[in-house]
């Protein structure tokens, strides 16, 4: 097991570091040592910073929407209703499908001429001309986000729902007796009792959002006009469309460091909070 981890995780990271200091194009061709040239090039071009910006917007949008939708859906499904056991398990359905299904669905419903979304918008009199959601630089990122959120929020709904069910019923009942309204109960009883799980959901959602490749690539290929080129897309593009492996490796290293900083700051905050509760 350890050998497996070394071969597929530690060695690759070291190899990425090595490649990032060379100028290899196609895989298999020899390269020469170029020092920090790639880093200078990457950090000095607008291409990289634009992707950082897109990645940030993409991550914040995705995490916020997935979190809110998951929380709302979990609260709704936490009620008593007929068939609740089946619904609570099967709500995860969109998450079970390959992203190609998701992309097909997204492209199909958002299509400017054939899509049902445009049809409904026109029928309701909201727009005159069809909108190309995935084809316009200003909208594409939001359209892909909507499709991706549809796939991921049910996954987090299941986790939040499980957390909600660990809250003892008496807690809510005593709040009811004290005359607390629904929102007050939510704010003072339910949310605080599941705050640990909610924090974990935010951490996972953000790391996974940064990681998303397939939904974006299949829907827009990073376009139009690079509007949906996140760091992940940029790495794939450099490595497998432009065949500049060293540059892709450099991007990977920079992304690795950025994420490490994010992960560590999150951990440090968690530790500090733990200390604060002890004191």
């Amino acid at each position, binding site marked *: *097991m350890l050998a*497996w*981890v070394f*071969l*597929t*995780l530690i*060695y*690759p990271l070291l*190899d*990425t570091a090595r490649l990032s200091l060379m100028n290899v194009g196609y*895989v*298999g061709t020899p390269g020469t040592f170029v020092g920090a040239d790639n880093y200078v090039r990457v950090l000095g071009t607008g291409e990289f910073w634009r992707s950082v910006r897109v990645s940030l917007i993409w991550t914040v949008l995705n995490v916020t929407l997935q979190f809110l939708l998951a929380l*709302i*859906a979990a609260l*709704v*499904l936490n009620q*008593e209703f007929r068939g609740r056991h089946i*619904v609570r*398990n099967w*709500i*995860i*359905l*969109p998450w*079970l*499908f*390959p*992203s*190609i*299904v998701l*992309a*097909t*669905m997204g*492209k*199909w*419903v958002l299509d400017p001429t*054939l899509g*049902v979304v445009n*049809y409904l918008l026109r029928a309701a009199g909201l727009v005159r001309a069809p909108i190309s959601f995935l084809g316009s630089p200003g909208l594409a990122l939001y359209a892909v986000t909507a499709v991706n959120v*549809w796939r991921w929020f049910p996954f987090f709904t*299941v*986790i939040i729902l*499980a*957390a909600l069910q*660990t809250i003892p019923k008496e807690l809510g009942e005593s709040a009811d007796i004290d005359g607390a309204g629904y929102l007050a109960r939510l704010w003072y009883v339910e949310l605080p009792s599941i705050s640990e*799980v909610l924090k974990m959901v935010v*951490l*996972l959602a953000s790391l996974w959002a*940064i990681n998303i*490749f*397939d939904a974006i*690539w*299949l829907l827009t290929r990073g376009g139009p006009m690079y509007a949906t080129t996140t760091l992940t897309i940029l790495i*794939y593009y450099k*490595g*497998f469309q432009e065949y500049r*492996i060293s540059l892709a490796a450099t991007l*990977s290293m920079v*992304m690795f460091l950025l*994420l490490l900083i994010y*992960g560590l700051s999150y951990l440090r905050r968690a530790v500090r909070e733990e200390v604060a509760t002890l004191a």
Partner: protein
Amino acid sequence: MRLAKNLARYFSVAAVLAVVLLPMYWIVISSFKTLPELTSPTPTFWPRTFTVEHYVRLFQQVPFVTYFLNSVYVALASTAITLVLASLAAYSLYRCRYRARHLLYRAFISIYIFPRVLLLIPLYVLFTRMGVIDTLLALIIVNVTVVAPFSIWMLRAFFTAVPLDLEDAAMVDGASRLQVLVRIFLPLSAPGLAAVALNSFLMSWTEYLFAVAFIISDGHKTLPVGMAHFLQQYFIDWGLLMSSSVLIAIPPIVLFGLAGRWFIKGLTAGAVR
């Protein structure tokens, strides 16, 4: 008052279900529409005439069966290897005592959270050197690597529930560690293994990034990669996309029906403690 409350309750549940189910409904009914109806600018909400032509074309016009079998092979092999590796590792982590056990556990978990795209370039280079690039073996190796940590995490709840006494008794009777694992742990945590198997099957079935980067020849493509080709052509063949989307979704649904509740349990037992 009570009626209003009940109405609000069922209305809210229905709204959540609609958000999740309507897009799927749309794909399923579209897959049965004739081509003119499918590509008419005025969509119909129920097919005027049902047809299975798009399903038939999948088997006649494109190598759907090849893609499908490749996907099945990769998913089954990845699942089998993951089951063996994850149960060995989980037994070691949760039941054997040695130094750095907790550190190792943390390390596994952080791997799972780690963005996979960072492995793309180095693994591509490594596999090219090993000569397994463009083979299904490459995908199996990647899938196991990506899925194993989470599988170990899922097994935790099931393995730690096995009573220590049982293990001690077996050891006294002269059973080796491996025998204890195979004879006692695995049968007792069968639901956990089902959860792990479902998870690794799903992950391998849906994997796209590595499959598109590592596979070049048409005969080795998995289903998601083969299908993506239909989506990215200038004239999109919507009929083929709809029918293959429906078919590709069936294995996950069937397997979830079989092992879904164990999967949900494994997923949430680790998260909610």
